Protein backbone atom coordinates (compact mmCIF):
# COMPACT_ATOMS: atom_id res chain seq x y z
CA UNK A 1 0.00 0.00 0.00
CA UNK A 2 1.46 3.34 -1.02
CA UNK A 3 0.48 6.42 0.99
CA UNK A 4 -2.85 7.98 -0.08
CA UNK A 5 -3.79 11.47 1.12
CA UNK A 6 -7.52 10.85 0.55
CA UNK A 7 -7.63 8.65 3.65
CA UNK A 8 -6.68 11.46 6.04
CA UNK A 9 -9.20 13.52 8.03
CA UNK A 10 -8.87 17.29 8.49
CA UNK A 11 -6.65 17.18 11.57
CA UNK A 12 -4.39 14.51 10.07
CA UNK A 13 -4.13 16.52 6.86
CA UNK A 14 -3.13 19.67 8.75
CA UNK A 15 -0.50 17.72 10.67
CA UNK A 16 0.70 16.22 7.38
CA UNK A 17 1.13 19.69 5.84
CA UNK A 18 2.91 21.03 8.95
CA UNK A 19 5.25 18.04 8.98
CA UNK A 20 6.07 18.49 5.28
CA UNK A 21 6.91 22.16 5.94
CA UNK A 22 9.31 21.04 8.68
CA UNK A 23 10.85 18.32 6.53
CA UNK A 24 11.39 20.73 3.64
CA UNK A 25 13.65 22.80 5.92
CA UNK A 26 16.16 19.94 6.29
CA UNK A 27 19.62 21.02 5.17
CA UNK A 28 20.48 18.45 2.52
CA UNK A 29 24.14 17.55 1.98
CA UNK A 30 25.29 16.96 -1.60
CA UNK A 31 25.67 13.28 -2.51
CA UNK A 32 29.16 14.06 -3.85
CA UNK A 33 30.11 14.76 -0.22
CA UNK A 34 27.86 12.33 1.68
CA UNK A 35 28.41 9.16 -0.35
CA UNK A 36 32.22 9.20 -0.53
CA UNK A 37 32.35 9.86 3.22
CA UNK A 38 30.04 6.92 3.85
CA UNK A 39 32.12 4.68 1.57
CA UNK A 40 35.32 5.80 3.33
CA UNK A 41 33.84 5.01 6.77
CA UNK A 42 32.87 1.52 5.60
CA UNK A 43 36.25 0.82 4.01
CA UNK A 44 38.08 1.86 7.17
CA UNK A 45 35.91 -0.43 9.30
CA UNK A 46 36.37 -3.42 7.01
CA UNK A 47 39.60 -4.29 8.84
CA UNK A 48 37.57 -5.01 11.97
CA UNK A 49 34.82 -6.90 10.15
CA UNK A 50 35.10 -10.66 10.80
CA UNK A 51 33.39 -11.47 7.52
CA UNK A 52 35.95 -9.49 5.54
CA UNK A 53 39.18 -9.82 7.50
CA UNK A 54 40.16 -13.46 8.10
CA UNK A 55 42.58 -12.39 10.85
CA UNK A 56 39.70 -11.12 12.97
CA UNK A 57 37.90 -14.41 12.43
CA UNK A 58 40.74 -16.27 14.15
CA UNK A 59 39.15 -15.18 17.42
CA UNK A 60 35.87 -16.90 16.55
CA UNK A 61 34.03 -17.90 19.75
CA UNK A 62 31.80 -20.35 17.91
CA UNK A 63 34.54 -22.58 16.57
CA UNK A 64 35.45 -25.55 18.77
CA UNK A 65 38.92 -24.74 20.11
CA UNK A 66 39.91 -28.38 20.38
CA UNK A 67 38.20 -31.72 20.11
CA UNK A 68 40.21 -33.65 22.67
CA UNK A 69 41.23 -32.80 26.20
CA UNK A 70 44.19 -34.46 27.87
CA UNK A 71 43.23 -35.55 31.39
Amino acid at each position, binding site marked *: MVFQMDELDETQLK*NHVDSLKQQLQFNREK*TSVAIPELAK*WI*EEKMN*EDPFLNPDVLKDNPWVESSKCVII
Partner: protein
Amino acid sequence: MGEMEQMKKEAEALKTQIEAARKAAHDTDMASAASGVAPAPRVQLKTRRTLKGHLAKIYAMHWCTDNRLMVSASQDGKLLIWDSHTGNKVNAVPLKSSWVMTCAYAPSGNLVASGGLDNMCTVYNLKTPVIKTVKELDAHTGYLSCARFLSDTEILTSSGDTTCALWDLETGKQKTVFLNHVGDCMCLSLSPDMNSFVSGACDSLAKLWDIRDGQCKQTFQGHTSDINAISFYPSANAIITGSDDCTCKMYDIRADQEVICYQDAALNSGVTSLDLSASGRLIFAGYDDFNCNIWDSLKGEKVGELKEKKKSLSWREC
Protein backbone atom coordinates in the same frame (compact mmCIF):
# COMPACT_ATOMS: atom_id res chain seq x y z
CA MET B 1 -12.09 25.57 -2.88
CA GLY B 2 -12.74 23.61 0.31
CA GLU B 3 -10.15 23.69 3.10
CA MET B 4 -9.32 20.01 2.63
CA GLU B 5 -8.71 20.55 -1.08
CA GLN B 6 -6.50 23.54 -0.33
CA MET B 7 -4.43 21.56 2.16
CA LYS B 8 -4.04 18.69 -0.29
CA LYS B 9 -2.77 21.12 -2.91
CA GLU B 10 -0.36 22.61 -0.38
CA ALA B 11 0.89 19.14 0.56
CA GLU B 12 1.49 18.27 -3.10
CA ALA B 13 3.38 21.52 -3.63
CA LEU B 14 5.57 20.86 -0.58
CA LYS B 15 6.34 17.33 -1.79
CA THR B 16 7.36 18.70 -5.16
CA GLN B 17 9.66 21.19 -3.45
CA ILE B 18 11.21 18.42 -1.32
CA GLU B 19 11.84 16.32 -4.44
CA ALA B 20 13.44 19.32 -6.13
CA ALA B 21 15.69 19.87 -3.11
CA ARG B 22 16.75 16.21 -3.22
CA LYS B 23 17.50 16.42 -6.93
CA ALA B 24 19.58 19.53 -6.35
CA ALA B 25 21.64 17.60 -3.79
CA HIS B 26 22.05 14.63 -6.15
CA ASP B 27 25.27 15.47 -7.97
CA THR B 28 26.62 11.90 -7.97
CA ASP B 29 25.33 8.39 -7.36
CA MET B 30 26.68 5.35 -5.50
CA ALA B 31 27.85 3.64 -8.70
CA SER B 32 30.14 6.57 -9.58
CA ALA B 33 31.23 7.28 -6.02
CA ALA B 34 32.10 3.62 -5.34
CA SER B 35 33.61 2.90 -8.77
CA GLY B 36 37.13 2.89 -7.33
CA VAL B 37 36.25 0.48 -4.53
CA ALA B 38 37.30 -3.15 -4.93
CA PRO B 39 34.34 -5.55 -4.93
CA ALA B 40 33.73 -7.46 -1.70
CA PRO B 41 34.86 -11.11 -1.81
CA ARG B 42 32.32 -13.91 -2.07
CA VAL B 43 31.05 -14.86 1.39
CA GLN B 44 30.67 -18.48 2.43
CA LEU B 45 28.68 -18.97 5.60
CA LYS B 46 29.22 -21.90 7.92
CA THR B 47 26.55 -23.01 10.34
CA ARG B 48 28.14 -23.05 13.78
CA ARG B 49 25.16 -23.73 16.00
CA THR B 50 21.64 -24.93 15.52
CA LEU B 51 19.55 -23.91 18.49
CA LYS B 52 16.77 -26.39 18.94
CA GLY B 53 14.04 -26.02 21.51
CA HIS B 54 11.15 -24.07 20.13
CA LEU B 55 8.06 -26.04 19.14
CA ALA B 56 6.51 -23.60 16.70
CA LYS B 57 7.45 -20.82 14.31
CA ILE B 58 10.12 -18.46 15.60
CA TYR B 59 9.12 -14.87 14.88
CA ALA B 60 11.99 -12.86 16.26
CA MET B 61 15.33 -12.86 17.99
CA HIS B 62 17.63 -10.26 19.47
CA TRP B 63 21.24 -10.35 20.66
CA CYS B 64 22.31 -9.18 24.09
CA THR B 65 25.08 -6.54 24.03
CA ASP B 66 27.56 -9.17 25.28
CA ASN B 67 27.30 -10.81 21.82
CA ARG B 68 26.86 -14.13 23.54
CA LEU B 69 23.35 -14.34 24.98
CA MET B 70 20.29 -13.94 22.80
CA VAL B 71 16.52 -14.08 23.18
CA SER B 72 14.14 -15.73 20.72
CA ALA B 73 10.35 -15.61 20.57
CA SER B 74 8.11 -18.33 19.25
CA GLN B 75 4.40 -18.83 18.79
CA ASP B 76 4.78 -21.89 21.00
CA GLY B 77 4.25 -19.24 23.70
CA LYS B 78 7.79 -18.95 24.97
CA LEU B 79 10.78 -16.67 25.03
CA LEU B 80 14.00 -18.63 25.21
CA ILE B 81 17.30 -17.13 26.35
CA TRP B 82 20.25 -18.93 24.77
CA ASP B 83 23.98 -18.99 25.41
CA SER B 84 25.13 -19.02 21.79
CA HIS B 85 28.64 -20.19 22.68
CA THR B 86 27.52 -23.42 24.36
CA GLY B 87 24.17 -23.72 22.58
CA ASN B 88 22.44 -24.15 25.94
CA LYS B 89 19.15 -22.62 27.00
CA VAL B 90 19.69 -20.31 29.95
CA ASN B 91 16.08 -19.30 30.64
CA ALA B 92 12.55 -19.94 29.43
CA VAL B 93 9.88 -17.28 29.86
CA PRO B 94 6.28 -18.44 29.41
CA LEU B 95 4.14 -15.86 27.62
CA LYS B 96 0.54 -14.95 28.53
CA SER B 97 -0.21 -14.59 24.85
CA SER B 98 1.43 -16.95 22.39
CA TRP B 99 0.84 -14.61 19.43
CA VAL B 100 4.23 -13.02 19.81
CA MET B 101 5.80 -10.99 16.98
CA THR B 102 8.82 -9.36 18.57
CA CYS B 103 11.32 -9.65 21.39
CA ALA B 104 14.13 -7.48 22.71
CA TYR B 105 17.09 -7.68 25.08
CA ALA B 106 17.93 -4.64 27.21
CA PRO B 107 21.50 -3.30 26.81
CA SER B 108 22.13 -4.06 30.50
CA GLY B 109 21.15 -7.72 30.06
CA ASN B 110 18.72 -7.39 32.99
CA LEU B 111 15.45 -7.22 31.07
CA VAL B 112 13.76 -8.72 28.03
CA ALA B 113 10.52 -7.68 26.35
CA SER B 114 7.98 -9.29 24.05
CA GLY B 115 4.75 -8.36 22.31
CA GLY B 116 2.48 -9.19 19.41
CA LEU B 117 -1.22 -9.59 18.69
CA ASP B 118 -2.05 -8.85 22.33
CA ASN B 119 -1.23 -5.18 21.45
CA MET B 120 0.98 -5.03 24.55
CA CYS B 121 4.65 -4.91 25.30
CA THR B 122 5.50 -7.06 28.34
CA VAL B 123 8.79 -6.51 30.13
CA TYR B 124 10.44 -9.25 32.22
CA ASN B 125 13.27 -9.09 34.76
CA LEU B 126 15.74 -11.92 34.21
CA LYS B 127 17.75 -11.20 37.32
CA THR B 128 15.20 -11.83 40.06
CA PRO B 129 15.41 -15.37 41.57
CA VAL B 130 12.30 -16.27 39.56
CA ILE B 131 11.75 -14.36 36.28
CA LYS B 132 9.13 -11.70 36.95
CA THR B 133 6.89 -9.62 34.73
CA VAL B 134 7.84 -6.04 35.64
CA LYS B 135 5.44 -4.14 33.37
CA GLU B 136 2.68 -4.67 30.85
CA LEU B 137 2.74 -1.66 28.52
CA ASP B 138 -0.82 -1.33 27.36
CA ALA B 139 -1.90 1.59 25.18
CA HIS B 140 -1.36 0.60 21.57
CA THR B 141 -4.56 -0.16 19.68
CA GLY B 142 -2.83 -2.45 17.22
CA TYR B 143 -0.33 -5.31 17.28
CA LEU B 144 3.18 -4.81 18.58
CA SER B 145 5.56 -5.30 15.65
CA CYS B 146 8.86 -4.30 17.26
CA ALA B 147 10.34 -3.20 20.59
CA ARG B 148 13.80 -1.87 21.49
CA PHE B 149 15.16 -0.88 24.92
CA LEU B 150 17.06 2.38 25.26
CA SER B 151 17.92 1.48 28.88
CA ASP B 152 16.34 -0.30 31.85
CA THR B 153 13.93 2.65 32.16
CA GLU B 154 12.89 3.39 28.57
CA ILE B 155 11.66 1.31 25.66
CA LEU B 156 10.56 2.15 22.10
CA THR B 157 7.77 0.26 20.37
CA SER B 158 6.25 0.19 16.88
CA SER B 159 2.68 -0.92 16.26
CA GLY B 160 0.08 -1.95 13.73
CA ASP B 161 -1.93 1.07 14.98
CA THR B 162 0.49 3.18 12.79
CA THR B 163 2.24 4.76 15.77
CA CYS B 164 5.54 4.30 17.55
CA ALA B 165 5.88 5.13 21.23
CA LEU B 166 8.52 5.81 23.86
CA TRP B 167 7.57 4.37 27.25
CA ASP B 168 8.70 5.09 30.79
CA LEU B 169 9.26 1.70 32.38
CA GLU B 170 8.90 3.03 35.91
CA THR B 171 5.37 4.39 35.36
CA GLY B 172 4.38 2.06 32.53
CA LYS B 173 3.07 5.05 30.57
CA GLN B 174 3.83 6.43 27.11
CA LYS B 175 6.16 9.47 27.31
CA THR B 176 6.01 10.27 23.61
CA VAL B 177 3.86 9.05 20.73
CA PHE B 178 5.31 9.32 17.24
CA LEU B 179 2.54 10.14 14.77
CA ASN B 180 3.09 10.43 11.04
CA HIS B 181 2.82 7.02 9.37
CA VAL B 182 -0.49 6.12 7.75
CA GLY B 183 0.15 2.39 7.56
CA ASP B 184 1.00 -0.28 10.15
CA CYS B 185 4.49 0.29 11.56
CA MET B 186 6.42 -2.91 11.01
CA CYS B 187 9.94 -2.27 12.26
CA LEU B 188 12.24 0.18 13.98
CA SER B 189 15.95 0.73 14.50
CA LEU B 190 17.67 2.94 17.09
CA SER B 191 20.52 5.23 16.09
CA PRO B 192 23.87 4.35 17.73
CA ASP B 193 23.70 7.54 19.87
CA MET B 194 20.06 6.76 20.83
CA ASN B 195 18.87 10.30 20.04
CA SER B 196 16.87 9.18 17.03
CA PHE B 197 15.32 6.14 15.43
CA VAL B 198 13.94 5.08 12.07
CA SER B 199 10.71 3.23 11.44
CA GLY B 200 9.41 1.33 8.42
CA ALA B 201 5.71 0.91 7.69
CA CYS B 202 3.05 -0.52 5.39
CA ASP B 203 2.70 2.93 3.79
CA SER B 204 6.01 2.01 2.06
CA LEU B 205 7.79 4.88 3.81
CA ALA B 206 10.69 4.95 6.26
CA LYS B 207 10.78 7.85 8.72
CA LEU B 208 13.53 9.29 10.89
CA TRP B 209 12.38 10.60 14.27
CA ASP B 210 13.90 12.72 17.03
CA ILE B 211 13.28 10.67 20.19
CA ARG B 212 13.17 13.67 22.51
CA ASP B 213 10.90 16.09 20.63
CA GLY B 214 8.77 13.38 18.99
CA GLN B 215 8.97 14.94 15.53
CA CYS B 216 9.38 13.20 12.20
CA LYS B 217 12.52 14.83 10.77
CA GLN B 218 12.80 13.03 7.45
CA THR B 219 10.75 10.72 5.25
CA PHE B 220 12.38 8.25 2.86
CA GLN B 221 10.31 7.10 -0.08
CA GLY B 222 10.95 4.81 -3.02
CA HIS B 223 9.62 1.45 -1.92
CA THR B 224 6.38 0.34 -3.53
CA SER B 225 5.20 -1.95 -0.75
CA ASP B 226 5.40 -2.61 3.00
CA ILE B 227 8.77 -2.06 4.63
CA ASN B 228 9.29 -5.10 6.87
CA ALA B 229 12.85 -4.54 8.05
CA ILE B 230 15.04 -1.55 8.74
CA SER B 231 18.48 -0.92 10.17
CA PHE B 232 20.63 2.08 10.99
CA TYR B 233 24.13 1.97 9.62
CA PRO B 234 26.78 1.66 12.35
CA SER B 235 28.13 5.01 11.09
CA ALA B 236 24.67 6.51 11.68
CA ASN B 237 24.71 8.31 8.31
CA ALA B 238 22.62 5.82 6.39
CA ILE B 239 19.81 3.33 6.76
CA ILE B 240 18.94 0.09 4.99
CA THR B 241 15.36 -1.01 4.41
CA GLY B 242 13.85 -4.31 3.23
CA SER B 243 10.42 -4.48 1.62
CA ASP B 244 7.65 -6.67 0.25
CA ASP B 245 8.58 -5.14 -3.12
CA CYS B 246 11.51 -7.64 -3.10
CA THR B 247 14.22 -4.99 -2.81
CA CYS B 248 16.45 -3.51 -0.17
CA LYS B 249 17.44 0.12 -0.36
CA MET B 250 20.10 2.30 1.20
CA TYR B 251 19.07 5.86 2.05
CA ASP B 252 21.72 8.43 2.87
CA ILE B 253 20.48 10.47 5.85
CA ARG B 254 22.51 13.61 5.15
CA ALA B 255 21.50 13.74 1.46
CA ASP B 256 17.93 12.77 2.45
CA GLN B 257 17.50 10.29 -0.41
CA GLU B 258 17.85 6.80 -1.77
CA VAL B 259 21.37 6.15 -3.03
CA ILE B 260 21.26 2.51 -4.11
CA CYS B 261 18.78 -0.33 -4.54
CA TYR B 262 19.61 -3.99 -3.99
CA GLN B 263 17.57 -6.01 -6.41
CA ASP B 264 17.70 -8.80 -8.91
CA ALA B 265 15.21 -9.74 -11.64
CA ALA B 266 15.33 -13.32 -10.41
CA LEU B 267 14.18 -12.31 -6.93
CA ASN B 268 10.43 -12.20 -6.60
CA SER B 269 9.98 -12.69 -2.86
CA GLY B 270 9.55 -9.99 -0.26
CA VAL B 271 12.34 -9.14 2.17
CA THR B 272 11.34 -10.11 5.71
CA SER B 273 14.43 -9.25 7.73
CA LEU B 274 17.92 -7.79 7.40
CA ASP B 275 21.10 -6.94 9.26
CA LEU B 276 24.55 -5.52 8.52
CA SER B 277 28.04 -6.83 9.09
CA ALA B 278 30.23 -4.90 11.56
CA SER B 279 31.59 -2.51 8.90
CA GLY B 280 28.30 -2.22 7.07
CA ARG B 281 29.91 -3.52 3.88
CA LEU B 282 27.71 -6.62 3.85
CA ILE B 283 23.93 -6.70 4.05
CA PHE B 284 22.30 -9.97 5.09
CA ALA B 285 18.70 -10.03 3.90
CA GLY B 286 16.12 -12.76 4.56
CA TYR B 287 13.40 -13.37 1.99
CA ASP B 288 9.99 -15.01 1.83
CA ASP B 289 11.37 -17.76 -0.42
CA PHE B 290 13.29 -19.19 2.57
CA ASN B 291 16.59 -17.75 1.36
CA CYS B 292 19.06 -15.23 2.71
CA ASN B 293 21.06 -13.15 0.24
CA ILE B 294 24.27 -11.34 1.10
CA TRP B 295 24.79 -8.01 -0.70
CA ASP B 296 27.87 -5.86 -1.16
CA SER B 297 26.41 -2.59 0.12
CA LEU B 298 28.72 -0.37 -1.97
CA LYS B 299 28.57 -2.24 -5.27
CA GLY B 300 24.98 -3.44 -5.12
CA GLU B 301 25.89 -7.01 -6.06
CA LYS B 302 25.07 -10.31 -4.43
CA VAL B 303 28.16 -11.89 -2.89
CA GLY B 304 26.66 -14.93 -1.23
CA GLU B 305 23.58 -16.70 -0.01
CA LEU B 306 22.36 -19.09 2.63
CA LYS B 307 19.73 -21.50 1.43
CA GLU B 308 17.53 -22.65 4.27
CA LYS B 309 15.64 -25.85 3.69
CA LYS B 310 12.42 -25.18 5.49
CA LYS B 311 11.01 -21.93 6.68
CA SER B 312 10.98 -18.27 5.73
CA LEU B 313 13.68 -16.43 7.68
CA SER B 314 12.11 -14.12 10.20
CA TRP B 315 15.23 -12.53 11.62
CA ARG B 316 18.92 -12.42 11.00
CA GLU B 317 21.35 -10.66 13.24
CA CYS B 318 25.07 -10.30 13.03
